[in-house]
């Protein structure tokens, strides 16, 4: 059910058509009536002039032979002309010779003083009377004058008839035109109202899958409007789908970020635990033994010899040196100073050397050609990821040797970690959230993804090959790391996170 609209285009079109029709008919009717009344009045004047000539000429003999009865008979023939009220014949001396009156109480006219002609007393719309005056001549000599007066009742009656006809014509025409306008306007207003209703419905329900039914091909503005609106709806729908897709992607990215944050927290926790274990199992134990050795020297028991004191001191100092070396190694693992001093290639080279020295796996660093130095933030992330991969090799691959290879491609940087180990199953790479498995590949993949990069993994019985790729203009945030002062003191401090 269409909702009524007070200013609907339908009513405006209907009113416009009706007003135009009424105005047209009124103007045409008025002009027609005025023209017809004017013609009727001219015709009436002509008729009176003709009658004056004919009757006057017929009265010439009566005037000449002084036969007023004959003249009156002639004048009485005017009775057939009902609009003629009075006719009078004057002799050459101006005396009334004969007269005719339709009504007995009609006053006889006096001899007019004006010249021959027609006098219309009320010229507008035919009301009043018309008077025709004519001088009668015989052989060129004036022998009398005739005057005929007629009322314009006929004109008034005709005007009245015309008014009725015009009113009827106006009413009929207006009715027909309104009916026609009512039928015709629907061809224009219906599609527009349909467009308005559909637009309102779409706007209210917000369902942009709906479409406006296009009118039959008429190549008019309505068809253009309908097509344009449908095109607009299609565009809105596509934008909405795109927006929805972006929202889904954003949700997914947020989820991955949350997972990454969790994974990073777990990694950090594992690292802390590993560092705590290493500190407890090795450095702290050694420091405790060193303290016992040194305290034993400080207490100087009487039974101890000088040589025993020296031996204790030597053992304690050796233990302290070992602990110092272990702490340096630990600091290197956390954040190698070479990363901040020499850049990513030098840090990776140091990592390879460190692993080779400590873990019994020969890791080579290969840089076949000079690669551009990435920004520090990017270098930190790449180093951490490469270290994770190398640790995976150490922990799980059972490899004898490996390679860290740095190259560039596609405007980005590639870091490849390859080993000759036993390989691993590919589905082990993406661990569940918070899981400790997956060799850390999941967190590596996610961190690279945040940077716009990616991770490719190939693994088999002959070993594994993991390639990291990041664009050089990757959007990295300021790392939480600060450039540590690589000194003997700071080397012993844990890195700020």
């Amino acid at each position, binding site marked *: 059910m269409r909702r009524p609209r007070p200013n609907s285009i339908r009513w405006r079109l209907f009113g416009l058509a009706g007003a135009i029709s009424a105005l047209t008919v009124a103007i045409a009717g008025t002009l027609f009536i005025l023209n017809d009344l004017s013609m009727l009045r001219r015709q009436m004047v002509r008729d009176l002039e003709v009658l004056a000539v004919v009757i006057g000429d017929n009265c*010439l*003999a*009566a005037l000449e*032979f002084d*036969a007023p009865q004959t003249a009156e008979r002639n004048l009485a023939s005017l009775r057939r002309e009902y609009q003629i009220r009075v006719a009078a014949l004057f002799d050459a001396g101006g005396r009334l010779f004969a007269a005719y009156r339709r009504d007995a109480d009609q006053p006889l006219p006096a001899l007019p003083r004006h010249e021959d002609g027609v006098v219309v007393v009320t010229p507008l719309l035919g009301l009043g009377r018309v008077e025709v005056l004519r001088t009668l001549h015989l052989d060129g000599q004036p022998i009398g004058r005739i005057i005929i007066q007629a009322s314009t009742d006929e004109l008034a009656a005709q005007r009245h008839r015309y008014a009725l006809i015009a009113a009827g014509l106006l009413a009929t025409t207006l009715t027909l035109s309104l009916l026609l306008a009512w039928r015709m306007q629907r061809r224009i207003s219906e599609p527009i109202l349909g467009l308005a209703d559909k637009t309102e419905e779409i706007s209210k329900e917000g369902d942009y899958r709906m479409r406006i039914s296009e009118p039959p091909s008429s190549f008019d503005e309505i068809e253009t409007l309908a097509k344009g609106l449908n095109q607009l709806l299609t565009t809105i729908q596509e934008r909405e789908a795109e927006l929805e897709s972006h929202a889904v992607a954003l949700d997914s990215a947020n989820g991955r970020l949350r997972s990454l944050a969790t994974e990073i927290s777990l990694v950090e926790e594992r690292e802390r635990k590993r560092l705590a274990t290493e500190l407890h199992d090795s450095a702290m134990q050694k420091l405790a033994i060193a303290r016992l050795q040194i305290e034993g020297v400080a207490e100087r028991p009487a039974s101890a010899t000088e040589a025993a004191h020296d031996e204790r001191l030597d053992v304690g100092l050796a233990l302290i040196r070992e602990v110092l070396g272990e702490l340096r190694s630990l600091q290197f693992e956390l954040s190698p100073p070479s990363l901040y001093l020499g850049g990513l290639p030098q840090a990776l080279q140091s990592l390879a050397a460190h692993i080779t020295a400590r873990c019994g796996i020969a890791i080579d660093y290969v840089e076949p050609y000079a690669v551009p130095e990435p920004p520090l933030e990017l270098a930190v992330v790449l180093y951490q990821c490469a270290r994770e991969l190398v640790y995976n090799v150490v922990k799980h691959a059972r490899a004898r040797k490996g390679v860290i290879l740095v190259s560039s491609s596609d405007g980005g940087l590639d870091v490849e970690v390859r080993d000759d180990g036993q390989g691993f199953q590919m589905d082990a790479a993406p661990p569940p959230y918070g899981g400790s498995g997956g060799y850390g590949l999941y967190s590596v993949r996610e961190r690279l993804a945040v940077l716009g990069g990616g991770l490719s993994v190939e693994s088999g019985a002959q070993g594994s090959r993991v390639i990291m790729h990041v664009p050089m203009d990757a959007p990295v945030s300021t790392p939480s790391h600060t450039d540590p002062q690589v000194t003997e003191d700071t080397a012993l401090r844990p890195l700020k996170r």
Partner: protein
Amino acid sequence: MSLALAFGPLPAGGDDNLIALKAAFVYKFTRFIDWPVAPADRPFIIAVIGDPAMHAALAALEEGSREVAGRPIRVRGSCDLDAADACQILFIGAAAEDRLADMVRRAAGRPVLLVGDTSGFAGRGVAIELFRKPDILGKREQLRFRIDPKALSGRGLTVSAQLYEVGEVLR
């Protein structure tokens, strides 16, 4: 005598006025009767027989340079029938009643209008007979005329219908 006196009812005084009125009537007949076309230099002749007074009254027309269809009027008084042969109007007075039949016979078939003022002439070959007629109240008399259509036929004269309306038509 002015022909203007001839208009209207008969004047109160004397035969002179009556004769003048009759003469005016004779002249007015020329305005409502057409004669065959004749050269303009040929006079329009009105002959009077048997009424010298009427001849005198009609002579005033000639003196007044009256014309009929552009032809000057000439008035001739005569007792000779031959003189009346060439006229267009022949007025026959009462004194010529004994020659009426001869005149009618001689004018037969010719474009001559025979006019008289003697009662009974109409019906005896005279086309128009003037007579006096009292008005409806009987107080005054009017000069009227009587027309005999038979006397007009066959003469080549065209008489206006108005003349029949104004005058009495002899049945």
